[in-house]
């Protein structure tokens, strides 16, 4: 009996008791492995987030610009009371919603073709064609649109060559809508495609056997089943637009200030970290609500 229990001794066998210990106590191994990354996250990232939350309830002395560490809700009151901040939050939300809707409309037929009609090779090609722009530099793609939309850019040149008047949409909210929709489109296509691919063809055939026309089958069978994928994509398009401040600076105009721009200015120029912290809680709160709704709609399984 003892022979079975005793492990064979080998060269460098010092590791044997250890590995045996880890095998019997997988929790111990997990703990050892988990400690360094967890420490990084808790000490740096989580502490930062908690500090941000606390800072939001502090204020700064208007004369010395020193942080006064007294618990109060002045920052939040200011955000709610001043119409300027309400406008900015409203604009950011509206544009995020508009971009999400635009991307869903653009992406769905594309993803549908990819998942249900395209051949295997075509599928691979289209998948790569979506992933390349997704990864190609964010700044580069925003910048490309500055070149396209500016007064003597490709857009006006094209309009002119077909005899239309120039469109001066550069540095407006319309430009932001176009650019955001462009930049986040791949983030909508990928999950929508993944969801559509999982809808079995047999369901559509069954719907057809029961007398549904193709469009009806798509509307009543495919669309509800693909919805979690679109919602998963919308998490990205919505959250990324909500938190952006680079695109408003580069392609927006005078009336294009986003939540992120105010946050950034309060960190840099105004040096009012407590107010910036309070304002940054707005997108966090909105995203928290959004994620709960998305979870209910089954978006997390679709990711």
């Amino acid at each position: 009996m003892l022979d079975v229990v005793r492990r064979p001794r080998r060269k460098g066998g010092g590791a044997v008791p250890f590995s045996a210990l880890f095998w019997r106590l997988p929790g111990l191994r997990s703990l050892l492995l988990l400690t360094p990354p967890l420490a990084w996250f808790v000490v740096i990232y989580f502490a930062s987030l908690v500090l941000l939350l606390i800072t939001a309830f502090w204020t700064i002395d208007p004369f010395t610009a020193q942080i006064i560490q007294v618990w109060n809700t002045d920052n939040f009151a200011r955000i709610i009371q001043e119409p300027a901040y309400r406008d900015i939050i409203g604009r950011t939300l509206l544009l995020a919603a508009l971009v999400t809707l635009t991307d869903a409309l653009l992406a769905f037929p594309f993803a549908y073709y990819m998942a249900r009609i395209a051949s295997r090779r075509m599928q691979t090609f289209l998948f790569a064609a979506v992933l390349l722009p997704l990864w190609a530099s964010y700044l580069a793609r925003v910048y490309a649109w500055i070149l396209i939309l500016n007064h003597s850019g490709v857009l006006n040149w094209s309009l002119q060559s077909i005899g239309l008047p120039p469109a001066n949409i550069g540095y407006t909210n319309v430009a932001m809508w176009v650019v955001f929709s462009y930049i986040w489109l791949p983030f909508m296509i990928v999950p929508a495609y993944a969801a559509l691919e999982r809808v079995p063809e047999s369901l559509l055939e069954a719907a057809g056997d029961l007398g549904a026309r193709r469009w009806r089958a798509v509307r009543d069978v495919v669309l509800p089943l693909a919805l979690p994928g679109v919602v998963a994509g919308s998490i990205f398009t919505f959250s990324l637009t909500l938190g952006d401040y680079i695109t408003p600076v580069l392609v927006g105009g005078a009336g294009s200030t986003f939540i992120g721009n105010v946050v950034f200015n309060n960190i840099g120029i105004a040096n009012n970290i407590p107010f910036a912290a309070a304002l940054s809680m707005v997108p966090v709160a909105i995203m928290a609500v959004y994620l709960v709704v998305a979870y209910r709609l089954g978006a997390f399984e679709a990711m």
Partner: protein
Amino acid sequence: MEGFWTRVLLRLWVALILVFLFTPIVLIFLYAFNTSNIQSWPIPGLTLKWFSATIDDADIRSSLALSLQVGLIATAVALVLGSCAAFAIHRMTWFGKEVVSLMFVLPLALPGIITGISLNAFFSFGGVQLSTLTIIVGHTTFCIVVVYNNVLARLRRTQGSLVEAAMDLGANGFQVFRDITLPLIATAVVAGAMLAFALSFDEVIVTTFTAGAQNTLPLWIFGAIRLGQRLPEVNVVVSFVILVTIIPVVIAARLTGGGGAARVPAAR
């Protein structure tokens, strides 16, 4: 099957979306060869002169060096920490698993500005001067998530029975890791590192909040575009950044059969 006209319309739609997706990228590359220093369309001719001007520019060279330094160090640290996290979470069974795994994806789930501003508040509160080190800390935080996601996805698809078989045959812990686990997950680890580097090399939001006086390449680009200065050089630099971010992603996609690169990187 869809009717004939539905298919024709869908095909047309796909073609239009592809044109929409790729026109801006192709244009950027064309503008990099623009003979004029005025950015208007059509470009009058093609030249290579901005390439040499860009290479000779000391600001651009030092920003590039910093971006490479930050990207390589952040990726290296994230490689170790992200893999550790993935291994631990994969084996964990207790109730805290959900909480911890949620925590590891938080930097990608929250808007980049939140990660940026909270790190900024953290450093300024702790009296840490913003420097190259703080940029690296910021980048490492979201790079860990990328590596973690890739390695964990592979571990979930790997059969535990292989490890058990090796142990039954007398392999010790180290041998199992070297001969079984590592070959199975190596491509996922490399893919994770590639994607982490690509993300770091192009990152601008977290960087603006964690950088002091130093410029990474994206910060240089952002500054130049905002001021409308040195746009001919911007065209060249931006084309270069596209290539540098695309190449590792293509490698990563090859290594993971497309899955890795599709695990959407939302750290922007």
